């Protein structure tokens, strides 16, 4: 398929690997921010190809994984109510809250629906005016235009039975938190290509200047990932730190200005607790006051519930890049995709799921770390 096959070409990829190995004179630690990138790095064995030269530190870029457990518990409360339907992406339905997942609520008779798009949830509300439809809005800046568009459509349609649980998170404040954390040893970042497609990458200039780390906007296919890594290594070897774009076919300096305006109409920046990482200043988006009628928390309120988090799960350290998933004592034994202790093991973008799927049976010494 055009725009995919050529970026999976093994000849080009192997030559990029060779170029990286030739350019690097010392080991470098590069963090890929996005969980989709993490999975493709593991799936294609890029981490092992570069072992000893580039260590890939897996970032917190799995929105489902960092969604606060309180938000999941709230969604479960709503889904258990009669005449309320909770819809979200498939990944979100599998993540454990304090008392199981949304899928468990569905199995017990709750109204939970997987949708491909937030706009599909608007259509569900339009077709069934007697039922309250709540969309559980998770995702980084990439997803915010779609959920904002859903709000604008619901407003145009005059729907009073559609609302959102807004759990959107923002990437750059999380990168700031990582760089500011004690002992941070990240040398460079692969910035998430689709986040930058939406918001652009001009805002990284200040970040790069402050921390003197290269930030390279990077796509998701093997050639994209290796091009991004090579650009990082070349900057590091030259002792440079610049914002560089290796995903030019989609990401532009100012991003998608139309999408940005849609998001600005509906959302404003707020502080947000990230599961496993704590509250991140300016780390989230919430509905602007004029859209409060679409806020599920305002519409339904919420009963206080005791939050129960597994103390066996080390996902906070995984999400901060401090340990590899395989470094967790529960990995692959007490914690598996079928019986997850934490969100990164169940999400299709979670680092633990990536290691379980692609690295569990690798020979000893070939972990890429």
């Amino acid at each position, binding site marked *: 398929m055009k725009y995919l096959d050529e970026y999976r070409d093994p000849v080009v990829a192997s030559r990029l690997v060779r170029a990286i190995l030739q350019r690097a004179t010392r080991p470098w630690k590069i963090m890929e921010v996005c969980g989709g990138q993490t999975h493709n790095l593991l799936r294609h064995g890029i981490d092992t190809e570069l072992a000893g030269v580039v260590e890939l530190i897996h970032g917190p870029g799995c929105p489902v994984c960092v969604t606060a457990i309180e938000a999941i518990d709230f969604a479960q409360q709503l889904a258990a109510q009669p005449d309320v339907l909770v819809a979200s992406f498939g990944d979100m339905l599998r993540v454990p809250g304090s008392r199981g997942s949304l899928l468990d609520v569905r199995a017990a008779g709750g109204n939970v629906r997987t949708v491909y798009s937030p706009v599909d949830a608007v259509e569900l509300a339009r077709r069934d005016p007697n039922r309250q439809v709540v969309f559980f809005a998770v995702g980084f800046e990439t997803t915010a235009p779609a959920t904002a568009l859903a709000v604008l459509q619901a407003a145009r349609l005059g729907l009073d039975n559609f609302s959102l649980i807004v759990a959107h998170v923002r990437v750059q404040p999380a990168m700031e938190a990582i760089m500011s954390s004690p002992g941070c040893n990240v040398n460079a970042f692969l910035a998430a290509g689709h986040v930058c497609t939406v918001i652009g990458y001009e805002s990284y200039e200040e970040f790069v200047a402050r921390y003197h780390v290269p930030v390279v906007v990077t796509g998701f296919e093997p050639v994209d990932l290796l091009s991004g890594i090579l650009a990082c290594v070349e900057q590091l070897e030259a002792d440079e730190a610049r914002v560089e774009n290796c995903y030019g*076919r989609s990401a532009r300096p100012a991003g998608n200005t139309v999408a940005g305006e849609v998001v600005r109409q509906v959302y404003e920046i707020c502080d947000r607790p990230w599961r496993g990482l704590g509250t991140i200043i300016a780390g989230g988006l919430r509905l602007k006051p004029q859209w409060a009628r679409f806020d599920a928390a305002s519409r339904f309120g919420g009963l206080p519930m005791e939050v129960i988090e597994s103390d066996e799960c080390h996902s906070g350290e995984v999400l901060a890049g401090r340990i590899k998933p395989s470094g967790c004592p529960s990995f692959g034994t007490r914690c598996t995709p079928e019986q997850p202790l934490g969100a990164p093991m169940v999400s299709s973008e979670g680092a633990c799921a990536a290691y379980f799927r692609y690295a569990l049976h690798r020979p000893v010494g070939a972990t890429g770390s």
Partner: protein
Amino acid sequence: MCLGIPGRVIRWIDRDPTFATAEIEFDGLRRVCHLACATDANVGDFVIVHAGVAISRLDPQAAQRVFDELARLGDDEGWHVPGPERAEHEP
């Protein structure tokens, strides 16, 4: 969750700023997607679709540039493997 899929715009269905939709083809499969955030896309263009909403119109020149720039690395046999413009016979 940030993954997006490239697809080709087959035909516009609705040009309303909030409800804009078009038929998009993904490797033979067609689906109606929302184009409110990619109103500059024309029929035949490729867009990246995320969660049912197009978030960018792909730039063919920039897509090819990556492959052209790889040639500067030397060891050039094979660097000019087909980029997007040559990977598929377009009408």
